[in-house]
């Protein structure tokens, strides 16, 4: 570590400390409102509630992405939240509203589209359902209509699936979740999507925000995320698609989805983070869709920990003064979005989302700077975040994806993502250490090592033998308390047994380093898992601490006399002038 870096660290640290101690900024933030995505609605509600406790009023309505984009374009709201941009291959011809002003997109949260289902096993709830992506495609295009269809049972050996009609629950309102889902169908299973369109009359060459159900007897459409969630919870043999947080909120199981490597994963914050390293981010700052996502490489990513149906959700903001946004409103929007991007990311994992990687946080903040009226205080906070990332050493927003000193594109959730126990050392090797993937987009080094292994054909790649064997098949997911009990992390079992369980069953050897089970937070854990945490290298917390303490001591010694002298001088000056 160079000396200049140390000094820079001291300066940055001191700046931060005193910024933090400063009184609340001039905070007469005017009330603003937005609407849109209900997929991201639980995240927005959390931020709205938390800035509310800071005295800032923001209204948000989960009306669906299509409505959100329309209201934003019509200048009825200061911002929209949507999974998809106004234009491009996810755009639906039915969504024909466009803003007549300049706007920008900024990612605000990541998440996984989960397949919540309602099946019984004896007197309890079946909560071990596994689905291949192919099965999902067949179910949601109306080609597989029975729960005991071979396509489903093939992934669920030993599970007695009922001979019942699958009740497929989709969104009736225009939804970004639907757009992303149908785009996945279109790209990964074009012939299945074509069949769906043949029956329902949709356009087989275009994704849609409005799920086509015409003529599909076993489909039912419900309004909003709340509607599909309530319907599924109350009706046996149902399955739906929506953000994981909705199933979490009512303690329902979601399907473990088989990824391209043949492993079954859940949309945990880790699995989503792993998958989204493959999201191609629009890097043309001149494009109105700058920072928008292309998920085509995500679906087929071969990392054994990846959850294939992962996506980012975006806030859409005006980048010029409009009828709906003056500078005062822009100041609030800046405050709110910065809060969401920084402090607001910390609770995302708990709610069933995945925090944004730091490089996208920084890119989003750069987008935010274009909003007219973003005030000095907010700009200073964004500057601090950026400086803390580039200089290393300070807790940049305490973002769980980021380790001080690392590249912002390196996602700690990826590094700490647990592997399935059936994935032994050789299976893990390509994805750890040097092979760990980094996030794409601005701030990425471009050397995404994870890509080298991701070249294989997506989706059509069928499961490897190992995935079926081993503890993965038997563990099941408890869908809550039971699942937590199984996970060594959440239980109180001794560390030794936890460690053993995490090691490879065949060789008895742990893949690498110390065995530390992942922090299961009551999610459905698949299997006892092992993972590794990157060691601390570079500018660590202790060093930082020492520097800060040193700096403060220095301040303690120097500040009083200096300040006293300064004040004395001023007083003298005033006396003289008086």
């Amino acid at each position: 570590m160079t000396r200049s870096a140390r000094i820079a660290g001291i300066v940055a640290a001191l700046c931060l400390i005193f910024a933090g101690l400063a009184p609340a900024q001039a905070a007469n933030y005017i009330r603003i409102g937005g609407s849109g995505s209900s997929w991201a609605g639980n995240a927005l509600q959390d931020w709205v509630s938390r800035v509310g406790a800071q005295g800032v009023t923001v209204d948000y309505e989960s009306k669906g992405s299509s409505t959100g984009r329309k209201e934003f374009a019509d200048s009825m709201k200061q911002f929209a939240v949507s999974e998809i941009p106004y234009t491009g291959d996810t755009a639906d011809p039915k969504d024909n509203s466009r803003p007549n002003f300049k706007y920008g997109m900024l990612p605000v949260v990541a998440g996984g589209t989960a397949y919540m289902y309602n099946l019984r096993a004896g007197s309890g709830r079946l909560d071990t359902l596994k689905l291949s992506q192919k099965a999902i495609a067949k179910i949601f295009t109306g080609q597989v209509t029975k729960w005991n269809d071979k396509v489903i049972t093939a992934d669920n050996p030993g599970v007695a699936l009922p001979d019942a009609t699958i009740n497929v629950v989709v969104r009736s309102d225009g939804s970004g979740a639907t757009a992303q889902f149908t785009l996945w169908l279109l790209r990964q299973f074009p012939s299945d999507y074509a069949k769906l369109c043949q029956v329902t009359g949709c356009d087989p060459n275009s994704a849609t925000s409005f799920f086509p159900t015409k003529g599909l007897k076993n489909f039912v459409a419900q309004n909003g995320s709340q509607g599909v969630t309530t319907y599924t919870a109350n009706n046996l043999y149902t399955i739906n698609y929506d953000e994981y947080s909705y199933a979490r909120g009512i303690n329902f199981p979601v399907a473990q989805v088989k990824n391209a490597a043949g492993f079954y994963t859940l949309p945990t914050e880790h699995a989503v983070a792993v998958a989204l390293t493959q999201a191609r981010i629009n890097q043309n700052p001149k494009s109105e869709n700058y920072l928008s996502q292309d998920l085509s490489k995500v679906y087929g990513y071969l990392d054994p920990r990846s959850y294939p149906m992962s996506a980012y959700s975006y806030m859409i903001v005006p980048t010029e003064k409009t009828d709906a946004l003056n500078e005062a409103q822009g100041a609030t929007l800046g405050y709110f979005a910065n809060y969401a991007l920084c402090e607001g990311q910390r609770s995302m994992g708990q709610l069933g989302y995945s925090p944004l990687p730091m490089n996208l946080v920084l890119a989003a903040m750069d987008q935010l700077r274009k909003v007219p009226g973003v005030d000095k205080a907010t700009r200073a906070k964004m500057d601090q975040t950026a400086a803390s990332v580039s200089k290393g050493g300070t807790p940049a927003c305490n973002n769980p994806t980021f380790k001080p000193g690392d590249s912002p594109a390196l996602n700690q959730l990826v590094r700490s993502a647990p592997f399935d126990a059936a994935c032994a050392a050789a299976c893990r090797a390509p994805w750890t250490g040097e092979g760990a993937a980094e996030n794409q987009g601005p701030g990425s080094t471009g050397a995404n090592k994870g890509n080298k292994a991701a070249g294989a054909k997506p989706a059509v790649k069928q499961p490897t033998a190992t995935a079926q064997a081993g503890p993965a098949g038997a563990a099941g997911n408890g869908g809550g308390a039971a699942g937590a009990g199984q996970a060594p992390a959440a239980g109180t079992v001794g560390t030794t047994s936890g460690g053993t369980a995490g090691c490879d069953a065949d060789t008895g050897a742990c893949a690498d380093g110390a065995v530390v089970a992942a922090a299961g937070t009551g999610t459905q854990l698949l299997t006892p898992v092992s993972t590794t945490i990157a060691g601390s290298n570079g500018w660590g917390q202790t060093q930082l601490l020492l520097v800060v303490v040193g700096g403060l001591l220095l301040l303690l010694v120097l500040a009083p006399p200096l300040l006293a002298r300064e004040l004395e001088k001023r007083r003298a000056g005033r006396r003289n002038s008086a």
Partner: protein
Amino acid sequence: MAAAATAAVVAGIMAVTTAGTGPAAAAPAASGSDWGPQGSMASDSAVTVRWDNQGNAPGSVVPRDETGLLPHTDAKSYADVNTRLRTAAEETFGPDNGLGGLSLTVSQTQNLQNQAVTVSFNGAKPVTGSNGLNSTYLQVFQCWGAMGEDGKPDPKAAEPDPATCQFGAVGPDGDISTSQHQRSLRNDPLVKGGDWEQLAPESTKMNLPAPFQSIGGEVTRIEDGFNLSEFRNPFFNATTTNEHSRFLASGQGDGSRSFELQTGTEASGLGCGLDPEAPSVETCWLVAVPRTEAMDEVQSAGPLSPSLWAMRLQVPLHFQPTAAVCPSDDAATLSSGSEALTVAMKSWIPGICADRKFTLGFSPMADLQARQQLGPADPLKFTTQPLEGDAGKDVLYAPVALSGVVVAMTIDNVCTTRFTEYTLKDCGYANEAAFEADRERSGSMVRNLKFNARLLAKLLTQSYVVHSAPASVETAPFTSPGSTKYGVPMTFSLQSDPEFKRLNPTGLGSAANMAPPVVEGLRSDAAAAVWDWILADDAGRAFLNGCPDEAGMVINPFYSTRSYAECPDQAKDLDAAAAAKIKDTKVPSTFNYAKANYPSDSAAYPQAYWTERAPVLREDGSVDQPALTVGDQYARVADMAAAALNTVRAQPASTSQWCAECTPAAFKSVPRQGYGGRSVLSITDAASAAKFQLPTAQLCDTAGTACVGATAQSLRTAAAGFVKTEVAGVLQPAAKPDYRDGAYPLTLPVYGAVKTAGLASADAKTFASLFDYLSTDGQEQGFRAGMLPPGYAPLTDGLQASTVAAVKSLQAVAAAKPVPTDKPTAKPSAAPQPTDTGSTPPAGLLPAGSGPVPAGTGSGPAPPAGTPAATTAPVEPQALPGTPTARTSGGWPPATLAIVLGAALAAILAAPLLVRGKRR
């Protein structure tokens, strides 16, 4: 605690006695402690003003003569107002109108914050309008005051300037196309020559809008319209405004409504409540402009036009200073859990910040979800029920609040507007005096409903004919009104239910077709408590199991468990009838019948999708409108706060209105109900109901002989009867609440739950401080930031002692593990670290057990097989192997930092003093 209860009683008495007095000087001791089933809250700062100014305090005097100068009119006065208009106003509102003249009361005028107050009036003579109905109404809104000569808000303004009023965005009772509901100055001759005319000199008929001047001085004026409901007004819009466009008088010339007061936080254009950081004022104004249809014919402009402004009543509103908030870039101590705390947290978080100097972050979520997440990585949650099994080990519980689940309501009672020959029969009053007494007390809203567990069960299970939508007689013959085909006919509605009538002899007025309660989708402990109450009640449980009530009414068979456990003798016949009903019902093709189970393991409030309205087909057989499902008809809302909002807005939770013009056509939310015909019930928390001053139902025992409404006292009485659970430190409501003793059955204790295994000492210290605050300052009832807001009861002494004990335990944890200041005390003994540069974080910074771990490169030497994790993390004996990726605290060892920082700051602060000292 007894003092608080006494204060509540006192406040209640004051409400009766202080009407008509001026603003009181002293702050009320326990303002906000008298919340309860009536909805309205009293205070010792209620103010009544009269239209004729008799007895009005100086701030409320509005001269009705030439001294009443009108702003923006070039010095014209009340005397210049059109004679016809003046005469009409004086005849309707003056002292000689036969009703003693118009007077208006605001229930609280001191120490205000963002809250509801009750605005009521009487003595407004009813004037029949063209539709044959009473046309006398008030327009009520909030204004910030007036700009001083210096271009800054004038703190001494004697009256508000109409330009500073939040009006014209159209309230929930308004009509966007009606000029009276806009900022229109249409044809008001008094505008001539004034500064407002200069804004649009080309307009020949003064057909122009009044501008809005914000507290910061910005002027907003829509050039091509009259209302400010549009986006172009940055300060308020139809969603955010608190204005009432048309507050209609009853047939007796009175009315009562809850009015939301807004501070600078909610209405930054008003800036009410002193905020050192922003333009703001301590005193704002409530303005009411009384009108009739006859007056509108003379002057059809909005209430800000000078001729109508001259008719106003005005009441100064004294706001608290806005609360200090923590700098938002502080890393918060994160917590999450029970949504029953949402309202309290909004008050507590700024209070904790000011008093304890840390930022608490709180994310409301399902209690169940919070319990599952509690662990070393996520050590602080709030929940009503304790954790079960192994997950419950090493968990410390600290009671923090007594909340309640309530049935809240917004129901207009037309039975009480006028006494007619039908009143006694329709409303069940014994005589006219009983009617008068009720009318006096309840105004035009129903405030005194009673439910028992079985009635609530009936409402939650679509067991009345009117709740069987979207079924039709064709698809579900058992819902045919009066049909005896399946035995006793299905009861038509709540009002026609003898059980309901026994409990509520005065009925429900217009609300005959009231929908089932609006309920949440979130699986909260609050929802679980509702079902526990119903199931613990013999009659409620019997009803869910398929047994009839005394009148023979049975549950909708699709919601029945069909166990008939409480009526085995009738089981055979009852089940045959239920089976026949089910068999004859044309269920949706996607419906799969299964017997119901209570409590449900699927949903907070289970919903059977047993019926639907068939799709509407076009001529070619294609679907025009899709099927309307039970879920569309009775939609769930996100949480209890949303349920309360639906109630105060009279917004049924129903997505059943077909919108053919929408792209694509779809079912949309039904419109809000209009004043006069509102009837919405919801299940929400007592604090959300109190926030909007919603009336709540009293809950009764099986026999209906004892009923208890949710009040601070009844919650505390219930808490005194809480019973022990298997989990130490956790008490839960008794299965059989003591109604006679006044215990509210749906009382919810909320606990802070801390995972002590692996708890960092810094966190332990923070949590100890948090619970210490919550058990002391946080239990003081009141409206100020940091206090316990209305809708909660202060902890009982027993619960408080439990919190104090928890604080001590946490302090012990904090003290037992001092924070290392420089070097880590624990060095890994195994697992070589290829990239270790000696920068291992101090143990106190990381959750114990995670320990330093090597970089997972895979290239480093692997440790011996089966190496116990403990060898690499020797910090905590009871450590868990869980390793979070992020800490909830900021990542600094606060003790060290705080000491050094404090010293440095002290030095800095001392510097000027030193200088001063030297000079002397």
